[in-house]
């Protein structure tokens, strides 16, 4: 078990190195112009450019810059640990920015995840237990509709109805929880639901088909033959086996969202990782892009690791060797 985890962590580190390397390579191989010239602004002098290159380490070849980035990330830099350097645009240390952005995105992702798990899985279970009924068919029909509803359509629509027309909700923007539970909740509820719709629909269909397949397994027939109550057959024998695969999907979905929900954050004006990504790409802010890529990759890699370890506890057939 321990050896397995160590091996997985080593692999994870390798994946992170490769991901950041590719980010650097793409950025420097693409014809995007000299970053120093962009940073210098209007009054450019050779001395200023030279100074900027020194300050941001742009005087080195790109692979040395990559190694320096890694060195700072691991050992820290003058702004503390982990050393994430400066933003090329705002010229402030990224460390503080990134963590406050992660906090916003995490609130969005976790809130939405709770919504879609509750709605998606319960709809899926109810549908699976009464397959081909009117309720099942309409739920699955709505799910198809929801899956085909992109956030950039649903978001503005929801804002138009609940904010502009009905005035039930206070509109866009970020309210930290320190300003009170009420304002925090009313600002978050719409982004949560809008982001969760697609996932809820997907999870409903997934849990329905998983559970239906499980309920036709031989061991469910055995459970019934034992004279267990139908409730126990479903809850203890059906759901346990039917919903376990969802853990995998959920881990990866949540991790991907923690790396930034670009469209949702843009529509609801939420200062999260996704919004930062849009700004950084627009301004060719290499360092910020590299840091965001690293953060997103860390989430995915860690989620993968957690899912795999969790699986060994959920399914006794999975063993580490």
């Amino acid at each position, binding site marked *: 078990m321990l050896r397995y985890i160590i091996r997985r962590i080593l692999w994870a580190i390798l994946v992170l190195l490769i991901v950041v390397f590719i980010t650097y390579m793409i950025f420097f191989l693409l014809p995007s112009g000299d970053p120093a010239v962009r940073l210098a602004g209007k009054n450019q002098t050779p001395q200023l450019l030279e100074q900027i290159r020194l300050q941001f380490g742009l005087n080195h070849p790109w692979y040395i810059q990559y190694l320096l980035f890694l060195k700072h990330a691991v050992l820290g830099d003058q702004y503390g640990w982990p050393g994430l350097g400066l933003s090329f645009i705002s010229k402030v240390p990224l460390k503080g920015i990134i963590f406050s952005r992660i906090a916003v995105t995490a609130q969005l992702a976790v809130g939405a995840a709770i919504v879609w798990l509750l709605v998606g899985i319960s709809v899926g279970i109810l549908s699976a237990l009464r397959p081909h009924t009117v309720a099942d068919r309409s739920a699955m029909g709505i799910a198809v509709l929801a899956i085909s509803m992109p956030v950039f359509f649903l978001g503005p629509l929801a804002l138009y109805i609940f904010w502009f027309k009905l005035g039930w909700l206070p509109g866009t923007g970020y309210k930290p929880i320190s300003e009170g539970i009420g304002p925090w909740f009313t600002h978050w509820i719409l982004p949560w639901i809008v982001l969760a719709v697609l996932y809820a629909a997907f999870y409903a269909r997934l849990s329905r088909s998983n559970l239906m397949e499980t309920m036709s397994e031989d*061991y469910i027939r055995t459970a019934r033959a034992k004279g267990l109550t139908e409730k126990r057959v479903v809850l203890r024998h059906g759901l346990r086996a039917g919903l*376990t695969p969802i853990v995998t999907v959920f881990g990866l979905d949540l991790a991907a969202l923690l790396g930034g929900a670009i469209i949702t954050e843009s529509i609801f004006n939420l200062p999260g990782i996704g919004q930062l990504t849009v700004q950084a790409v627009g301004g060719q802010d290499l360092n910020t892009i590299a840091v965001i890529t690293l953060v997103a990759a860390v989430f995915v890699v860690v989620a993968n690791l957690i899912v795999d370890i969790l699986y060994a506890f959920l399914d006794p057939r999975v063993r580490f060797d």
Partner: protein
Amino acid sequence: MPEPLLEVKDLRVHFPTEDGVVKAVDGLSFSMQAGETLGIVGESGSGKSVSFLTVMGLINKKSAIIEGQVLFQGQDLVQMANDELREIRGAKIAMIFQDPMTSLHPFYKVGDQISEMILAHEDISKKEAFDRSVEMLRRVNIPQPKERARQYPHEFSGGMRQRAMIAMALSLNPDLLIADEPTTALDVTVQAQILDLIDRLQSEFNTAVALITHDLGVVAEHCHHIQVMYAGKIVEEGTADDIYYRPMMPYTWGLLRSLPRLGHDTDRLTPIAGAPPSLIFLPDGCSFSPRCPYVFDECRAIEPELLPIDGHHAARCHLSLEDRERIVAQEILAPS
């Protein structure tokens, strides 16, 4: 004659589908005495499993039309409410299935799965239930039952899993054990062990056993009575001797001819020509008539009754008894 343990009267189990009504069981009547072993033989789709799943109440009543009576110790299981039926299931009628690899839940320990059944019917502590599970595993000859009870099904071999299923099925000392092709998925050597085990436990527990199989060879030495099913009906029934030495129905002949026999120097086994009939569009007359080598006009028009021959022996066939006796003597039993 004492009151039978199980009496099935004119049972019909029909499944409405988009293509038509599947008549899986179509007028089935038989009875079983306490402690008796009944063999039920037939091809896939002959209705043998469905009829016993109906006895267990494991056919979804929403997807099937069930008619007739299943009297178990005098109570009609078809009319019984689900809750009452659940109390009988496992405790008085237990069932083991064809594929031991998939019949146990992969996520729970074997001992816990047995305990769960005991706890569903008896008000005892978890510890007591687990101890009884271990004791049952010991009685089905699983070595180191205490350790084995704490293992998961995937740590068991196929034969051991079937033993564990048998241990579970007998843990509440049921009056009737339904064994639905219990050895089909196992190696031949393991098959014999499992059948001997069922034999031994049957006399220890005095349980009646319904042994469902498609293999006449399996039921021969283990069953008091045998009934041969075809297209949802019994086409021949009798003692093992009746079926083996005086079979009176062409389908039974076909089954016997497709068996390898010691001492018979045959190069090839003779399969039954054709395929089992569609259970939606059953042929007129005798349902075996399209595949029967001895068919004549009457067979295609009138369905034969299950007529007694002697004692408990009965068969459905329009051929005269003399003709059938002649065919059996000349073609079926004669060494080729």
